[in-house]
C-alpha cells in the first residue's frame, strides 16, 4: 500500500517534470552511445565505422526513449493530449468545414437533447423522495381499464390488513380558493393521510410536515404544509410564515411547515402547493362523506412495498382484501365487471402523471424522429470528412511512410471527429436549453400552470455527452479507416487530383447519400401525415361556430356565493355581459365545449329497451340563447325561452344523435324522458332538436347530449359563460374581467379565452407532433440536400479535367449538365426506392395519431416524394451548371 502510494507519487513527480526527465534520458543515451563507439574504436574500427556500428547496435534512440517513457504509463494520456491539440489545430485551420460540420451536429444533437429533456422530465425522472422504486399506486381495474380512485373505507381495509407494504397512504388532489396575505387565488392542494410525508420520506425545509397525530380527530386539525414554490411566491420566503393563518375555502388553517424546493407533490408537471390532513376533508373537500363505502371513488392510494416482497405477491394479497371489501359493496354487476374486478399495482417511482399518459407516445415518436435527424447529420459530416480525407491523402501517406502506425492515425482522425462532435454537442446543449421552454409551451396549462424542471442536470449532460461521443465515433470511424487505407507509392507519386484509388471511397459517400435521402423521405412522409391530420382536425365539423366566441369560467366553490346568492350572481353577470358593447348574445352553461367536463346522468326513455351501455347520457344545463351563442343550429322544435321558468313544466332539447338513437324513425318532439335518479330526477318534455357537437374532443364522435334548462335546475358553483361578439372576441377580455370585478371583488373568474383558442388547446398533442416533425422533416431534407450538393460539387471539381476534354471534343453544355444531373437523380431515386417501402412499413406504427387519412395516404406520400426529388434536383443542378461552365482551355491547361 505504502509502496503503491510512493509509486503514484513518483509518477506525479515524473509527469510534473517530464520535459526534464526526457532531456535526462536523451543525455543518458547519448553518453551510452559515445562510450559504445569509443569501445568500438578501441577494438580497432575506424572512427566513422565505430560510430555507425554503435548506432546500429543501439537502435532507434527516439523509439527507445518512447518505450522507456512508456514505463511511466503516461503515453496514452500524452498522445491523447497531442491528438487533441493537433485536432484543434486542424479544425481551426479549416473554419468553413468546421462550421458546417459543427452546425449540423449541433442541430442534430440539440434536437435530441431537447426532446430527451422533455422525456426525462415527463417520463423518466424519479420522484424526489426516499426509495421511489418501492412506491406503487394501488388501483382497481376491469374490462374498461384501470382506475386510480379508491375510497376511504377501502383504503382503511387495505391499510389495516395488508402485510406486504411497510405503509399505505391516500391523498385527494383538489383546487381551493386560498386567501393568504389578503390575496385570493385558486391553488392546487390536497388532503392527505397523516403518514403521507413520512411514508414518502419527505422532510420539511422549514417547520415540520404533517404527522399521524395531525390526522386523528375529524375536523380537528386545521394545519397546513405549503410548498417551497408557494412560500416563495406568496410569502417571499419569509421564515415568519410558520404560525400564520391562511383561509382555504373560507376555513382558517395554520401553516406549520414548508416542504423542500424539489418536492412538487406526486403529479408530474403540476405543483401541489398546500397539503392538509385527511381529517379536514369534510370541510375543504368536495363535501362527500369519507365513510361512504360504495361511492366517492376519488382517492388515489399509494403503498411502499416492503423490501423483498414481490409485486405479484403483494397484488394477490391486496386482491383478496379487495374482494372481501367489494363483497359488501352495493354495485351494479356491469360496473363491477368494468372497473372493479381486481387490484392492479402501478409503479409510481416517477409519480402519477396525466401528462405522461397524454404525451408519452408523442414524445417517443419525436425521439425516433430526432434520432433519425441525427443520423442524417452524422452521414453529412461523414461525407465531409470523406471529401477532406481525399484532400489529406498526401499528408496521411507521408505520415504512414515515415512510420506512423495505422491504428495511431485512425486514433488521431477519430479524435478529430470526436472533437467535432463534442463541440457540436456543447452548442447543441445550448440550443436545447433555449428551445426546451418553447417546447413546454406546447403543453397547455390545465388549471394550474405547468411546472416542469427542464434545466440541464447531470442526466441531460450525460445524455448529450454520450450522444456526442457516439456520433463522433459513428461518423468518424468509416472515413478514418478509409483515409488510412492508402496506396503509399501511388499516392505519393501522383498529383492530388488524379482519380486514383478513389472508386471505393466515392462509393461510401454515395451509400451515405442514398441512406440520407431514404431517411429524409421517411421523415417527410411522417411529417406530412402529422401535419395533414392536424389540418383535418382543425377543419373538422365541430357542430358549433368557434369564431367570435369568448368563454370564461366562474368557479364559486368554497366562496360565500351559495344558493340564492349564487343564482343572483349568475343572473347579474349575465345581464352585465349582455349589456357589454360588442356582445351579440351572452349565455351560460354547466359544461364548456371540448373537454369541458360534462355531467353524466341516467336517462330513461319510456318505450325504449335500455341496455347497460345506453343508460348514461351527457347533460348540459344551459341558459336561453345558448344555441344561438354557440352557433349550434336548431334542427326541429324550439330553443329554451323565458316561458320555461322554474314553475313551468320542465323541458329538454336533445342533440340529433340522441334523437336518432332513442327515437329512430319517430318524431321526438313532445316525447317525455326522465333524466337523473330520484330525488332530482324529473320527467321533461322534449321541445327541440339541435345538431350534434363535439363536446368530448375533436377526435371523438359527436357527444350524445341532453340540454336541460339551467333555470329549472339547481345552481351549480362552476359555470362557463359564453359571449358571441361582433368583432374579435379577445378584445373583450379586459372588459369582461372589469365587469366581473365590478359585480364583486371576490368573484373568482378563471380561464378567459376564446372558443377558437380552447379548440386549439385541445389539439396540443397533435400540434406538438405536427410542428416538430414538420420542422425536423424539413431540417432532414435540408441536411440531405446539403450532403447531395456537397458530394456532387466535389465530384464536379474532381472531374473538371475530364469535363474539359469532353467539351473540347464537342460535347454540348446541356450534355454536361445532364451528365451531372443524371447521377444526382439516380442517387435520389435509389434513396426514394429504399425510403418509400420503409415509410410504408413504419407509418402504420403512427396510425393512432392520424385523423381523417390513412397511414398510407397516397396524396401525402406522393407530395413528400415529389418534394424530395425536386429539392434533390435543385441540389444537383447547382454543381451541374458549374460543370457546364467549365472553360475547356483553362481545365486542360491546368494539368
Amino acid at each position, binding site marked *: 500500500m505504502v509502496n503503491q502510494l510512493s509509486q503514484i507519487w513518483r509518477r506525479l513527480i515524473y509527469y510534473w517534470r517530464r520535459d526534464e526527465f526526457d532531456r535526462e534520458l536523451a543525455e543518458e543515451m547519448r553518453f*551510452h552511445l559515445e562510450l559504445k563507439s569509443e569501445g568500438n574504436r578501441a577494438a580497432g574500427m575506424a572512427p566513422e565505422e565505430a560510430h555507425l556500428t554503435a548506432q546500429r547496435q543501439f537502435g532507434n534512440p527516439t523509439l527507445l526513449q518512447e518505450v522507456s517513457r512508456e514505463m511511466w504509463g503516461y503515453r496514452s494520456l500524452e498522445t491523447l493530449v497531442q491528438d487533441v491539440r493537433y485536432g484543434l489545430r486542424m479544425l481551426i485551420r479549416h473554419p468553413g468545414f468546421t462550421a458546417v460540420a459543427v452546425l449540423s451536429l449541433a442541430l442534430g444533437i440539440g434536437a435530441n437533447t431537447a426532446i430527451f429533456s422533455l422525456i426525462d422530465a415527463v417520463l423518466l425522472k424519479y420522484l424526489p423522495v426516499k426509495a421511489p422504486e418501492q412506491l406503487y399506486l394501488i388501483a382497481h381495474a376491469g374490462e374498461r381499464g384501470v382506475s386510480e380512485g379508491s375510497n376511504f373505507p377501502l383504503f382503511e381495509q387495505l391499510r389495516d390488513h395488508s402485510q406486504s407494504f411497510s405503509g399505505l397512504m391516500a391523498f385527494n388532489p383538489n383546487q381551493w380558493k386560498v386567501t393568504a396575505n389578503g390575496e385570493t387565488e385558486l391553488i392546487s392542494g390536497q388532503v392527505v393521510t397523516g403518514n403521507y410525508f413520512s411514508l414518502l420520506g419527505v422532510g420539511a425545509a422549514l417547520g415540520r410536515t404533517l404527522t399521524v397525530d395531525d390526522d386523528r380527530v375529524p375536523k380537528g386539525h386545521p394545519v397546513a404544509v405549503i410548498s417551497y414554490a408557494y412560500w416563495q411566491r406568496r410569502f417571499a420566503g419569509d421564515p415568519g410564515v410558520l404560525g400564520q393563518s391562511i383561509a382555504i375555502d373560507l376555513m382558517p388553517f395554520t401553516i406549520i411547515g414548508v416542504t423542500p424546493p424539489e418536492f412538487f407533490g406526486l403529479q408530474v408537471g403540476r405543483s401541489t402547493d398546500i397539503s392538509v390532513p385527511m381529517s379536514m376533508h369534510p370541510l375543504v373537500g368536495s363535501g362527500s362523506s369519507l365513510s361512504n363505502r360504495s361511492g366517492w371513488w376519488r382517492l388515489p392510494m399509494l403503498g411502499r412495498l416492503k423490501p423483498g416482497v414481490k409485486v405479484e405477491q403483494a397484488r394477490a394479497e391486496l386482491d383478496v382484501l379487495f374482494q372481501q371489501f367489494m363483497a359488501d359493496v352495493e354495485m351494479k354487476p356491469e360496473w363491477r365487471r368494468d372497473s372493479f374486478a381486481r387490484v392492479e399495482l402501478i409503479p409510481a417511482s416517477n409519480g402519477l402523471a396525466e401528462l405522461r399518459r397524454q404525451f408519452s407516445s408523442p414524445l417517443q415518436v419525436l425521439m425516433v424522429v430526432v434520432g433519425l435527424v441525427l443520423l442524417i447529420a452524422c452521414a453529412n459530416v461523414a461525407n465531409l470528412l470523406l471529401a477532406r480525407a481525399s484532400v489529406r491523402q498526401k499528408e496521411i501517406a507521408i505520415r504512414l511512410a515515415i512510420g506512423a502506425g495505422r491504428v495511431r492515425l485512425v486514433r488521431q482522425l477519430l479524435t478529430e471527429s470526436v472533437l467535432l462532435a463534442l463541440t457540436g454537442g456543447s452548442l447543441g446543449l445550448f440550443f436545447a436549453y433555449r428551445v426546451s421552454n418553447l417546447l413546454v409551451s406546447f403543453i397547455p396549462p390545465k388549471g394550474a400552470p405547468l411546472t416542469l424542471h427542464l434545466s440541464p442536470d447531470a442526466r441531460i449532460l450525460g445524455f448529450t455527452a454520450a450522444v456526442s461521443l457516439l456520433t463522433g465515433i459513428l461518423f468518424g470511424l468509416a472515413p478514418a479507416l478509409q483515409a488510412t487505407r492508402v496506396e503509399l507509392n501511388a499516392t505519393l507519386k501522383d498529383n492530388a487530383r488524379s482519380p486514383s484509388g478513389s472508386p471505393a471511397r466515392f462509393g461510401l459517400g454515395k451509400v451515405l447519400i442514398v441512406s440520407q435521402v431514404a431517411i429524409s423521405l421517411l421523415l417527410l412522409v411522417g411529417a406530412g401525415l402529422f401535419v395533414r391530420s392536424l389540418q383535418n382536425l382543425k377543419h373538422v365539423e365541430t357542430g358549433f361556430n368557434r369564431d367570435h366566441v369568448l368563454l370564461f369560467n366562474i368557479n364559486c366553490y368554497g366562496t360565500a356565493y351559495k344558493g340564492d346568492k349564487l343564482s343572483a350572481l349568475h343572473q347579474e353577470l349575465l345581464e352585465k355581459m349582455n349589456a357589454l358593447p360588442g356582445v351579440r348574445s351572452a349565455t351560460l352553461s354547466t359544461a364548456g365545449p371540448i373537454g369541458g367536463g360534462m355531467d353524466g346522468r341516467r336517462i330513461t326513455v319510456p318505450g325504449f329497451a335500455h341496455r347497460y351501455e345506453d343508460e348514461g347520457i351527457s347533460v348540459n344545463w344551459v341558459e336561453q340563447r345558448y344555441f344561438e351563442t354557440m352557433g349550434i343550429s336548431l334542427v326541429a322544435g324550439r330553443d329554451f325561452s323565458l316561458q320555461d321558468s322554474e314553475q313551468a313544466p320542465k323541458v329538454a332539447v336533445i342533440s340529433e344523435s340522441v334523437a336518432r338513437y332513442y327515437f329512430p324513425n319517430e318524431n321526438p318532439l313532445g316525447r317525455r324522458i326522465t333524466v337523473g335518479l330520484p330525488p332530482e330526477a324529473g320527467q321533461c318534455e322534449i321541445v327541440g332538436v339541435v345538431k350534434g357537437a363535439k363536446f368530448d374532443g375533436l377526435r371523438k364522435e359527436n357527444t350524445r347530449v341532453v340540454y336541460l334548462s339551467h333555470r329549472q335546475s339547481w345552481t351549480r358553483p362552476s359555470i362557463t359563460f359564453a359571449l358571441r361578439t361582433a368583432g374579435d372576441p379577445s378584445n373583450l377580455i379586459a372588459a369582461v374581467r372589469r365587469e366581473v370585478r365590478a359585480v364583486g371583488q371576490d368573484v373568482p373568474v378563471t380561464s378567459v379565452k376564446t372558443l377558437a383558442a380552447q379548440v386549439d388547446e385541445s389539439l396540443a398533442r397533435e400540434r406538438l407532433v405536427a410542428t416538430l416533425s414538420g420542422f425536423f422533416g424539413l431540417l432532414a431534407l435540408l441536411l440531405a440536400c446539403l450532403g447531395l450538393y456537397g458530394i456532387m460539387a466535389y465530384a464536379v471539381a474532381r472531374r473538371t479535367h475530364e469535363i474539359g476534354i469532353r467539351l473540347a471534343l464537342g460535347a454540348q453544355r446541356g450534355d454536361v449538365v445532364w451528365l451531372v444531373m443524371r447521377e444526382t437523380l439516380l442517387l435520389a431515386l435509389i434513396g426514394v426506392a429504399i425510403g418509400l417501402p420503409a415509410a410504408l412499413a413504419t407509418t402504420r406504427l403512427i396510425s393512432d395519431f392520424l385523423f381523417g387519412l390513412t397511414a398510407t395516404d397516397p396524396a401525402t406520400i406522393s407530395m413528400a416524394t415529389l418534394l424530395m426529388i425536386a429539392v434533390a434536383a435543385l441540389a444537383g443542378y447547382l454543381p451541374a451548371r458549374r460543370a457546364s461552365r467549365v472553360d475547356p482551355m483553362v481545365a486542360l491547361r491546368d494539368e
Partner: protein
Amino acid sequence: MGRDKHQKKSELLPGTLDMLVLKTLERNPMPMHGYGIAQYIQQISQDVLQVEEGSLYPALQRMKLKGWVASEWGYSTNNRRARFYRLTAAGRKQLEREESDFDRMLEAILRVMQPV
C-alpha cells in the same frame, strides 16, 4: 557485420534482466551508469549474455518507478556527465525474492534435464 556465428550470444531468459541488473548493482559498491551495467553483465558472462539497450533503459525506468533503484547524476571516469544507479533497500529485498525464485526454477529445470 562481424558477428561471429559460432560465438552464440544468447537472448536473455525472459524476466531475468531485472535480476541481473539488481545483482550487478549489489556486487558493485559504487553506483554504475547504464553502459557500465551492460558491460559488466557481458564481461562476467563471458560475452554470452548480451544486454540490449532496447530493453536495458526501459527496465531501468521501470525499476526506478518501482523504487528498486535510485539514480543521481555524476561524472564518469573520463569526466563526462552520466546518470549513476544504485540499489535501494527495496531493490535488495526484490533481488532476494528473485534470486530464490530463480534458484528454485533452476533446480527444477536441472531435475528434469538430469539423466535418471
